[in-house]
């Protein structure tokens, strides 16, 4: 039987605020256990939550970026369950009135664009951490993370393969970092994914029973975990079994998912509006203030790059996936007064390759946009040829000198002096009479030979256009 896979993702992004969503404790990662858990985070008797404005602002930014409705009225609710990393015995979350409504995100898979629906995104507080390394057989609880603001982004069950799920997750990861609402650090748990996976016979309308795979925290594992889960479900059904609705945990070491004991029993979360918090009203003024300061979104930026700079689809896409990269491009362009296309080619080509090789982000590039602009300017004004430029680029990467300094020091300046080029051409024509004859008898291809010889003689510093022009004239006699 042919099977179809249905995947929906719930992604938890920690919002990049200084303080927690309902308290004034720091959200910084990596502090000593429980040193950033204040009275409110610990759920001491009598404490009360007060909502962090920045968390609301960041959620609204996200909502605008996925073209979703921003709820004018949203409500915090208590989700009740007992777990030692949940100090109050309930999580403050949103149920009936999430802050961000229906939106979407476009992904590209195998050269095709697919629109993935986003059902909702809601604000909630993160839980603490259980440390399982043994304390005389006990579990240690660190509540530093408790109360860190989370935006839970829930997709529609629109993905049909692990590959699509990963593409969606990557795109979302790029977006939240682009927007600056989440640092995207997956090792530190800033960006976490739960996947709802089900299978159904191809052509069947109803969804199959789904299993939820919890906390898969790398792109690689998402793909592996989902593929593993798909296989497990198909095998199960084909052997006459039934998929049970349950929560499963992915074990990256064994590359398998297993049922989570702690979530075995069906929960009744008893959601109800949190009486300690009032409804959040987001008015037009709040929204327009955010809109005014909203960074240009990747989609809009891509369009602008294509129209304003005449870039092709591929360069425009690459340059606009990351805000720092796009900013680098535009800064370079502004400084260099060079051709946008040339600039784009250098950044998406040589620079990206070098960064990739060195494992660096654009923000850590050893070549500042000013220094790259200096190189591009010399290419544009014909001081150096493209070939020499690659040599200068190497020097730029290694040193702190400017392109001009490197060109001067290494004597790489392109020769545009017609007299000098002419004398070289004369010499080469004299030395290669056989080829001259061939050319004159109609073998145009030989022309390249002459260009090569001239360039070799001039160590690549001759202006190629000038060489072409002069050679043509001389060869035709």
């Amino acid at each position, binding site marked *: 039987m042919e099977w179809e896979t249905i995947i929906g993702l719930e992604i938890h992004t920690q919002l990049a605020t200084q303080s927690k969503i309902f308290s004034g404790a720091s959200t910084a990662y990596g502090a000593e256990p429980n040193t950033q858990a204040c009275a409110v985070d610990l759920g001491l008797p*009598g404490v009360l939550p007060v909502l962090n404005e920045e968390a609301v602002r960041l959620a609204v930014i996200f909502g605008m970026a996925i073209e979703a409705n921003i709820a004018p009225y949203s409500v915090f609710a208590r989700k009740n369950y007992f777990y*030692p990393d949940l100090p109050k015995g309930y999580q403050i979350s949103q149920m009936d009135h999430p802050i961000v409504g229906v939106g979407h995100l476009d992904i590209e898979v195998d050269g095709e664009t697919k629109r993935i629906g986003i059902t909702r995104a809601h604000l909630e507080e993160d839980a603490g951490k259980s440390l399982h390394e043994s304390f005389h057989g006990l579990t240690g609880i660190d509540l530093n993370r408790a109360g860190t603001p989370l935006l839970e982004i829930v997709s529609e069950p629109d993905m049909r393969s692990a590959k699509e799920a990963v593409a969606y997750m990557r795109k979302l990861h790029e977006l939240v970092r682009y927007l600056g609402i989440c640092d995207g650090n997956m090792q530190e748990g800033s960006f976490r994914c739960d996947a709802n996976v089900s299978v159904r016979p191809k052509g069947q309308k109803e969804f199959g029973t789904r299993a939820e795979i919890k906390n898969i925290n790398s792109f690689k594992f998402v793909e592996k975990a989902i593929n593993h889960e798909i296989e497990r479900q198909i095998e199960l059904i084909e052997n006459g079994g039934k998929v049970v609705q349950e929560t499963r945990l992915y074990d990256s070491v064994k590359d398998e998912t297993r049922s989570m004991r702690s979530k075995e029993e069906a929960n009744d979360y008893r959601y109800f509006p949190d009486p300690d918090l009032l409804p959040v009203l987001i008015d037009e003024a709040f929204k327009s203030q955010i809109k005014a300061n909203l960074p240009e979104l990747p989609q809009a930026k891509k369009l602008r790059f294509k129209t304003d700079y005449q870039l092709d689809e591929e360069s425009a896409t690459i340059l606009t996936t990351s805000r720092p990269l796009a900013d680098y491009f535009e800064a370079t362009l502004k400084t260099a007064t060079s051709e946008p296309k040339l600039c784009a080619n250098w950044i998406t080509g040589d620079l990206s390759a070098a960064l990739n090789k060195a494992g660096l982000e654009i923000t850590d590039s050893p070549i500042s946009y000013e220094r790259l602009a200096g190189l591009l300017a010399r290419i544009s004004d014909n001081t150096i040829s493209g070939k020499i430029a690659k040599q200068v680029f190497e020097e730029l990467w290694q040193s702190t000198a400017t392109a001009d300094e490197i060109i001067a020091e290494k004597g790489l300046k392109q020769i545009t002096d017609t007299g000098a080029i002419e004398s070289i051409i004369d010499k080469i024509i004299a030395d290669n009479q056989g080829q001259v004859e061939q050319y004159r008898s109609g073998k145009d291809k030989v022309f390249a030979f002459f260009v090569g010889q001239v360039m070799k003689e001039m160590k690549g510093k001759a202006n190629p256009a000038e060489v072409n022009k002069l050679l043509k004239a001389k060869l035709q006699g």
Partner: protein
Amino acid sequence: MHTKSLTELAHGLRSGDFSSVELTQHFLNRIKKHQDLNAYITVTEEIAIQNAMAADARLTRGQVEPLTGIPIAQKDIFCTLDIKTSCGSKMLDNFIAPYNATVVEKFNQAGAVHLGKLNMDEFAMGSSNETSYYGAVKNPWNINTVPGGSSGGSGAAVSARLAACATGTDTGGSIRQPAAHCGITGLKPTYGRVSRYGMIAYASSLDQGGPMARSAEDAAILLQTMAGFDPKDSTSVDLSVPNYSEGLNNSLAGLRIGLPKEFFSNDLNSDMAAKLETAINEYRKLGAEVKEVSMPNLRLAIPAYYVIAPAECSANLSRFDGVRFGYRCENPVDLSDLYTRSRGEGFGKEVKRRILMGTYALSTGYYDAYYVKAQKIRRLISDDFKNALTEVDVIMGPVTPTPAFGIGEKIADPIEMYLSDIYTIAINLAGLPALSIPAGFINDLPVGLQIIGNYFTEDRLLNIAHQYQQVTDWHQHTPKGFE
């Protein structure tokens, strides 16, 4: 000294008739002498003397506020830094609060003397103070009767003069009912007027702290310190606080009093009705006009309240899990055992009953039928009050169906106990301010008159109560043996 009003005490301290240390010692002695009342859970003798010495120093420097050097006591629901804060529960018997409630902080800044923590129904759930882990409080008017609850310790302490005044909290009548049973003045302010930060939550959308004192004049002084916006409480209202003492002597001429016919039906005990009639006649003499109003949905206040309050409490009390503070059972075998036994052993019966009730009302399949329905009825009741308060300035009625009942009389029947809240809980659902003032005696037990006002009209309520207390002396009666 213990018979003096707050104004008189402040005057005595300022003019040097007695020091705060002397005054404090006097109250501490009385507390010791009358410990059989069981009004206090914790007496902070050393802290009280330290506070008094600091207040005396402040008095000599002339940096005086109305409560500087005055010995007061806190309901044991307010968190007090480094002092046991039990909330009347075994669950918190070992809980030394690591921070101060905003209200406590305000009293400290005012230079008040902290005598100790007052007994109360466990987690403020009760109308008789009998659900306290620390045992029932006795009513100073008759030690075989209850002082009311949940602020029963506060009611008894103020009535027996074991504190110059006290704080209470009111979720369904927990200030007004003990005030009525103990013959004192108790005010539940508008929801949001007094910070809830550090006040251990029972039902967050209903809880409100307020003053319990011997007179409206004293209550005004106490409220002045308690009231005000608190950025730590999202439900605190950012509205300036009027001077509550300033208008106490305003005339009541033309005051429009509404009497809800639902309060004065045939169900009302005839003795109680007679006492109320006498009190309302005093108001007529003071120039008030009296008319009947109707609030048809009041009869559903009890069921609505006993869904909403337990629902909120079922979540509010989940934090008591034996992990970070409070009671933990011995040798838990696993996590589930830790939770179940710590909570099962740490909470008393009434608290468990309400947690179960609330858990049920919020659970799948019942949420709409109970919780949402109750919230809708809450709206209708609130609208009833809003409508009535367009026709009249204040609403008057009984506080309790009867005077204080006997210890042990109702504790076995939770529903009968709940029904004794019938006149008070609707006010919490609406969030309105209301006070209870002494209005006479039935069988030597005090009865209270309830006065309900519009939002943020505490000043007017205090004025109305004070005027009555200028022409009556019910509030000046002291129970025998406590003079």
